[in-house]
C-alpha cells in the first residue's frame, strides 16, 4: 500500500471530506510524528507501536573508493517498535 492508496482507502470510509482534504490530514499525521522526533520527543500509539530516536555512536568508517579512514560522527536515527497488537496481527 502506498500513501496514495492509504488516502484513497481512508477517504472512502470518511463521510463529508473530499479526497484532497483527507490527503492534507494524512500529511499532518505523518508530519507530526516526524516533527516530534525532530525535537527529541517520542510518539507512543497503543496497539500500533512507538517511534523514538536511537543513538548511533561515532565510529570509524572507510571511504570504499580511496580506502581512507573517515570519522563518522554520532547521530540519532528514527526507530519504530511495533506494538503488541500489531506484532500479533502480523505473526499469525
Amino acid at each position, binding site marked *: 500500500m502506498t*500513501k496514495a492508496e492509504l488516502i484513497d482507502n481512508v477517504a472512502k470510509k470518511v463521510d463529508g471530506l473530499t479526497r484532497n482534504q483527507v490527503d492534507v490530514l494524512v500529511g499532518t499525521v505523518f508530519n507530526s510524528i516526524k516533527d516530534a522526533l*525532530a525535537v527529541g520527543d517520542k510518539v507512543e500509539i497503543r496497539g500500533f507501536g512507538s517511534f523514538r530516536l536511537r543513538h548511533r555512536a561515532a565510529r570509524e568508517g572507510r571511504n570504499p573508493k580511496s580506502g581512507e579512514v573517515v570519522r563518522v560522527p554520532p547521530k540519532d536515527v528514527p526507530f519504530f517498535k511495533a506494538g503488541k497488537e500489531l*506484532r500479533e496481527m*502480523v505473526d499469525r
Partner: protein
Amino acid sequence: MRKADIANLLYERHGIPKREATAIVELILDEIKDSLAAGEEVKIAGFGNFTVRDKTERKGRNPKTGEEIGITPRKVVTFRASPVFKQSVLASRG
C-alpha cells in the same frame, strides 16, 4: 506524543471536530495495520516504509538461567525511515 495529541492537531490546524479527528487517526492506523497483517508492505513517501520480514528459527538463551531455548520462526514488522525523515532528525539534533 500520543494518539490524542495527533487528533488534537487535526482539530487545531484543520478544524476537524475532535471526535472525528480521533476516528480519522484510528482509520489511518487501522489501514496500515491491516495491510501489514495481510503481509503487504506500506510505503509512505517522505516518511518511510513498513515491511513484514520473515525471521527464521534460531537458538536463544534465557538470560537469567542460561538455559537454551528455541525461538520459533516468526513474522515481524520493520520500519525504514525515509531519507527526508532521517534528515529532519539530523538537521535539528545534529
